[in-house]
């Protein structure tokens, strides 16, 4: 690891000044479980390690019935899944944050870092996308908000521009009769990187027989996590057990998947998994919506 300076600013403004003074030579530190590993492997060289964990906004975790769930970008995964409102109202966030790495990783690694690292196989983004997550960004030109599905631009790449920081991720209050579910496929039970993953959210009719609207997202099957609008559209207005609609949604996920073959899986396997995981995530989301 090359030598660098360290700063732990206590305000967003201070962090922004340090970030712009660093001229692109700054490593932004939340939990560090990706960044420190990258620094050790000399994949990145930095002049300044900028620790965001002393900034109140980046470690905030709160819920309000009117404004929804607010997760500071540096909030650790375990703080998220141990937050009672998350387990009761946003279980899809428990699904993903509780299987990012080991317990040791979850106690440091943050959802914001998982998003900013922008791995195509990251386990956070699909659930964040289907839950309507919004990324709150602040930079030298002020604040802006980007829908999670629009945040990613390529492997390790996002819409974050030089001098910008992800400060928080916000989620709307779940609609009545709604449910969401995330799962991934790995060859073992834990501590692995997704061969493919998927998340689905649904809003059911009051009698819980019909899917009024749905969102489907898949990961590890394209250069970025994908919102599959066609899959959601295939389910909208259909009965919860409409096999043709469910199969149409799975087909839409398979069609959207543009995976590569690598050590974890082949193109053929990943396309197949995009369909299988979409089906299982639909079933999980509908089940949770029925129980809601």
């Amino acid at each position: 690891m090359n030598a660098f300076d360290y700063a732990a600013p206590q305000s967003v403004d201070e962090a922004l000044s340090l970030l712009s003074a660093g001229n692109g030579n700054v490593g932004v530190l939340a939990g560090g479980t990706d960044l420190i590993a990258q620094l050790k492997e000399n994949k990145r060289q930095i002049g300044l390690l900028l620790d965001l964990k002393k900034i109140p906004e980046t470690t905030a975790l709160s819920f309000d019935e009117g404004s929804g769930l607010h997760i500071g970008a540096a909030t650790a995964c375990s703080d998220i899944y141990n937050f009672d409102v998350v387990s009761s109202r946003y279980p899809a966030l428990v699904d993903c944050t509780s299987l990012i790495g080991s317990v040791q990783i979850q106690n440091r690694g943050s959802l914001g870092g998982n998003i900013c690292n922008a791995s195509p196989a990251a386990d956070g983004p699909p659930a964040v996308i289907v839950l309507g997550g919004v990324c709150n960004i602040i930079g030298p030109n002020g604040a802006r908000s980007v829908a999670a599905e629009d945040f990613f631009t390529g492997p390790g790449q996002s819409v974050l521009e030089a001098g910008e920081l992800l400060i928080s991720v916000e989620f709307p209050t779940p609609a009545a009769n709604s449910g969401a579910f995330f799962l991934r496929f790995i060859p073992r039970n834990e501590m692995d990187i997704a061969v493919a993953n998927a998340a689905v959210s649904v809003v059911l009719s009051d009698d819980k027989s019909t899917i009024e609207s749905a969102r489907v997202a898949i990961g590890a099957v394209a250069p970025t996590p994908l919102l599959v609008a066609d899959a959601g559209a295939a389910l909208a207005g259909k009965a919860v057990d409409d096999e043709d609609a469910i199969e149409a949604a799975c087909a839409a996920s398979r069609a959207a998947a543009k995976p590569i073959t690598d050590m974890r899986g082949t193109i053929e396997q990943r396309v197949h998994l995009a369909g299988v995981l979409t089906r299982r995530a639909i079933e999980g989301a509908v089940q949770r919506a029925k129980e809601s």
Partner: protein
Amino acid sequence: MAGKVHVTTTINGESVEFLCEPRQTILEVLRDQLDLTGTKEGCSNGNCGACSIQVNGDVIDSCLMMAVEAEGQDLQTIEGVADPEGLHPLQQKFLEHAALQCGICTPGFIMAAKALLEKEPNPSEERIRLYLAGNLCRCTGYDKIVRAVQDAASVMAK
């Protein structure tokens, strides 16, 4: 060149001060400066858990925490687990069940299992296996480790 940083922290209940470079991990400082070599370095990238310590009660990989981040935190390492009266029940049960062979992974397993039992005194076997998934052992096949943790949990419940 970056200067050294003065850090004040608590390690095993005692206030500790050290100087470190910002690029040093807390694992490096524990082992190379503070002579707390019970914490082991394995993969050094967050996969094996050999370097597990507790920070404010939570188990973490010390290879992925910078030493400067220890400022104001409460750290516990394997050196602080036994007390003057004797071994911690987890240590005693690891011995009784022969839950180690080469021993390199053992301090990390003890720290992770200790964090688990402090938060969940009566975990199921499945829960123990899941919680300890971030600790790798290449000798035992894990069964003896899991049985040692189960036995320690039952002793600690009394």
